[in-house]
């Protein structure tokens, strides 16, 4: 082919319509980690309220004492307690309970010892049994529901998922994008909030440093600025579709677990939450 004309550009653009579906799919990818994180904290306020209301002591009950390291690496003591505010810890310097906010603590709020409500209380037989002692039958029932659902679903700490799919740039592509190598990566990066879907390569002028070339989820195939990217996506459509499939496959188990947890918790706690509201 000689010099490209605008007629040929338009013809090629028409053929690029077939990449619309890939762009659409990439834009629709939802962060599974974000989904899990939402559920991770979704039930704690209700559970804390219900446990608080079910406390059979007049003020508060000490469930468990533990040591933890503070930010300066000093060992301090804290007590796991139940009060009308729910279940949580008080440290030696604080008298108010800080109720659990999450099923699993990603940010280690109480020091090394606290890993969230499930690890600290539900999964620890000694702590769990002790906590039950201070609760009326309704409170015990709620604790048992969480334990059962936890065991049935086997949820874990919400984690990010990243897909790195290697592929080869053609020589024309390598030259066009000023790359130092034919090695490329299609990446789907879930940072816990949103999903970034892009292409990286090694830029000629940056040595071995990998550089992001473009994002797929923000591509506008009608924009002349994105023409070359859309053409690239067409050339590698199969690779992109596979990467999307891989992300969906890899996150499916986690998503299913948390979905199941969400459904079962809703079912288990519904009558108590409703009762509490009435």
């Amino acid at each position: 082919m000689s010099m490209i004309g605008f007629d040929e550009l338009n013809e090629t653009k028409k053929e690029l319509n077939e990449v619309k579906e890939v762009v659409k799919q990439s834009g629709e990818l939802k962060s599974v980690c974000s989904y899990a994180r939402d559920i991770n904290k979704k039930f704690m306020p209700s559970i804390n309220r219900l446990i608080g209301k079910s406390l059979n002591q007049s003020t508060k009950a000490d469930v468990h004492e533990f040591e933890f390291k503070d930010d300066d690496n000093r060992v301090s003591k804290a007590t796991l307690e139940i009060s009308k505010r729910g279940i949580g810890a008080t440290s030696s310097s604080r008298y108010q309970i800080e109720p659990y906010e999450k099923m699993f603590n990603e940010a280690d709020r109480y020091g090394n010892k606290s890993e969230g409500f499930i690890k600290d209380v539900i999964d620890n037989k000694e702590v769990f049994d002790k906590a039950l002692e201070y609760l009326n039958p309704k409170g015990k029932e709620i604790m048992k529901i969480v334990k059962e659902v936890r065991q049935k679903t086997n949820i874990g700490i919400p984690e990010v998922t990243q897909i790195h799919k290697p592929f080869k740039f053609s020589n024309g592509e390598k030259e066009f994008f000023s790359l130092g190598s034919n090695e490329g990566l299609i990446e789907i990066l879930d940072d816990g909030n949103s999903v970034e879907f892009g292409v990286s390569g090694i830029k000629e002028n940056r040595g071995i440093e990998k550089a992001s070339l473009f994002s797929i989820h923000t591509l506008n195939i009608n924009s002349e600025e994105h023409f070359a990217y859309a053409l690239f996506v067409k050339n590698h459509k199969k690779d992109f579709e596979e990467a999307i499939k891989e992300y969906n496959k890899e996150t499916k188990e986690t998503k299913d677990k948390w979905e199941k947890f969400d459904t079962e918790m809703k079912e288990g706690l519904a009558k108590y939450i409703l009762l509490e509201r009435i």
Partner: protein
Amino acid sequence: MITFNDIMDTKIAMKDAWDFREKIKDTEASFDYMQTINCKTAEQVNSLIGRFFNQPKKIAAYTWKRKNKYNTTPNNIDLQISKSGMGATHRGNRIDAYTKLLDDDSYYESKGMVGDVIDDKEVYDKTFACLSEKGQDVLSALKEAREASNIKHPKSTTIKYPLKLSEDERECFNLKDKSIVDFTEDAFIELKDDYKEMVVEVKSEVAKNTNQYTKEGTIFKINNLDMNDEKDFQYFLFIHYHLKEFEDAFSQYMEKTKEHKARWTTFKELMNEKIAKYVVLYKM
């Protein structure tokens, strides 16, 4: 179907478009050229007048009734000369020295050193009388250079050059608005010396109606184009196919600014000749 190899071949073949981009980058904006002389000379002259001022205290050379920027009531303004140079004082005592030869945008509604002093015989004579011999020489040099060159206010120049687009180009840039009947007007090159640099843009009235472009209808700006940026490929291709129009627009700009710029060049050369010895002396 275009391949990346075709694109690479085309990139090589459209070197003329790259060269045009470089030419724009290397062309000095006429407005900036004139404004630089306008400011620098005023600064230089003021330094010399201050330096050669031989009175122990400042001198009020002239009194105007003049408005300030924020007030409609005219106040008395003194044109004064001191060690700080020549300028106006209002309520305070410090001289607000001239920063430009023409069109001074100071607090006072001043026409600049040339407009206020050199072009006004009464003010000029009064000022002249307050200066030492060397100061008078500098002021005379400015008057002579002004008269010989007849410089005018530096002003920005804009060229609007119509572009006739092909059907394919209109399709590519989403400019197929049926309401526009006269397609000779559906796009144009706008060349403007926006003070610091010469800005060249391709604009379209139709483009104002799409979300893809700016509300001014800018499709692309040549100054922002980068040969190594894959996003700019189609814009370079467009320049390649319309190179003649771009060159014509550029020539029009050069032609339009030629006389104005030449006056300032003459003025600059004359001033350099006349005050060079004082500038050198001053620096020593």
